[in-house]
């Protein structure tokens, strides 16, 4: 079966970002960018399904600026077969991304779409669910385990109360959670091979999608700063302060 995976280029998870002093947004100048960690997990899962003989082809998509090609190359180096960049400099919000992915799904006809559950920059956690809705497909979100058979996929999901297992008809959309797998590092030979894999480029207009943002960001502020704390010298001192100073116990 064919798989489609989408990957997003985001600020590396180790970076402590700062808010611009003019409140216009986050300061991204010279900041290290990487593949969204949940999307790495999505690519890894797709590659494992290919290695298991369940999937025959993996198409990886990214959407946005030309630099997103680097992110696609990383996915190709991990084992995806070919890439598609939907190129635009317009800010893409989840509904627009879902519509673009739907247009690509309509063309590519994958049996399973695997996305990360959320991007660690906007923390929206919407795209997979929206894409499933637009396609009329079932959705298996926050997946920690997938078992694919010919017509169905069993998805174990991490939910607030614990784990929930659902059976979904294929084709379906799943979104990955942290414990689905541990992504591989691309080996140097695979990185070299990936340079030869094709990446097609397409614009939103060619897919017939209006990507005009619906939400306007008025300002971005720093969260309230906490007061500096103190070090205590002993457990006894800690408990005394919690009782008498902080009055929380």
């Amino acid at each position, binding site marked *: 079966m064919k798989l489609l995976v989408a990957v997003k280029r985001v600020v590396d998870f180790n970076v402590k*970002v700062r808010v611009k002093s003019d409140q216009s947004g986050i300061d991204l100048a010279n900041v290290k960018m990487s593949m969204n960690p949940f999307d790495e997990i999505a690519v890894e899962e797709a590659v494992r399904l290919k290695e298991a003989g369940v999937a025959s082809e993996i198409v990886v998509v990214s959407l946005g600026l030309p630099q997103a090609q680097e992110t696609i190359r990383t996915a190709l180096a991990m084992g995806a077969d070919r890439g598609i960049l939907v190129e635009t400099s317009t800010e893409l919000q*989840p*509904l627009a991304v879902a519509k673009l992915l739907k247009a690509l799904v309509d063309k590519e006809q994958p049996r399973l779409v695997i996305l990360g559950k959320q991007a660690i920059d906007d923390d929206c956690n*919407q795209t997979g669910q929206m894409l499933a809705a637009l396609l009329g497909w*079932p959705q298996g979100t926050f997946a920690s385990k997938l078992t694919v058979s010919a017509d169905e996929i069993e998805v174990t999901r991490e*939910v607030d109360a614990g784990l929930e297992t659902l059976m979904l008809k294929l084709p379906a959309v799943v979104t990955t959670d942290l414990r689905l797998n541990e992504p591989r590092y691309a080996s140097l030979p695979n990185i070299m091979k990936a340079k030869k894999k094709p990446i097609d480029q397409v614009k939103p207009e060619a897919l017939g999608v209006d990507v005009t943002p619906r939400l306007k960001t*008025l300002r971005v502020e720093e969260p309230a700063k906490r007061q500096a704390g103190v070090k*205590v010298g002993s*457990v006894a001192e800690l408990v005394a302060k919690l009782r008498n100073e902080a009055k929380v116990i």
Partner: protein
Amino acid sequence: MSVLAIAEHDNASIKPATLNAVTAAAQLGPVDLLVAGAGCRAAAEQAAKIAGVAKVLLADAPEYAHGLAENLAPLVVTLAAGYSHVLVTATTFGKNLLPRAAALLDLQQISDVVKIVSADSFVRPIYAGNGLATVQSADRIKLLTVRSTAFEAAKAEGGSAAVETVPAAGDAGLSRFVKQEVSKSERPELSSARIVISGGRGMQAAENFHLLEEVADRLGAAVGASRAAVDAGFKPNEFQVGQTGKVVAPDLYIAVGISGAIQHLAGMKDSKVIVAINKDEEAPIFAVADYGLVADLFTAVPELKAELDRKA
């Protein structure tokens, strides 16, 4: 303006997280609360008593038994037209459901709202809570998931709403529930507990969490865990506090053997008082702790239990 809030429940009773959504909803207008389930009249009657609920909409049908998004989203779509806003708490239930309904309605929902500025402007955290974005929506209906810790719980008693039955929207036939594995505990629920004690990689083994549980017993606290501890198998996933786990804001958060990665802080930095116990004095957690104790947790935590017993 009127608001449709979506209740989370287990057919017998309403989950506490719904009470936070009602408070948020009430800031925008009169609130109707949707209770969709199977054999859920008891939950609906409980919903009718929540202070601030004007009307309960009851959709009772087998296809709603397990909160499957494929079945609930079309129901929300049939009901949404009469409202200016549709809200649900940003639990895994709400996060799974609302975007599906939003896309069916061709609307851009706003996730994880922490403050309602006006009918069309909302504040939400971005970049693991390192930025707070104020966003404005021009959509004809605003769909929001709200962070439970940002809104007080509405009172569970005092209301006397009417319960109105609404027609079920049918089974989409796309998905079915197989099973669930949930942990049962006498302890308070992690998302809403007044005190939380969490363990990280420093706990070294699952069995060592009993040290934290003994302190939790004495404080009436919930127990949490960092991602590292969950990945290592010390605790199941529902204990994870962090950017993509549970976000908590208790009166007291005690971080034991937790280094304080950005992603963990995202889940607890709004706690009123933060205590850190870690033998590494350079651990980033100390930068957010109100009280930091540089010590070996295997000595300090048993001492903490003893100290709490001393003046009991």
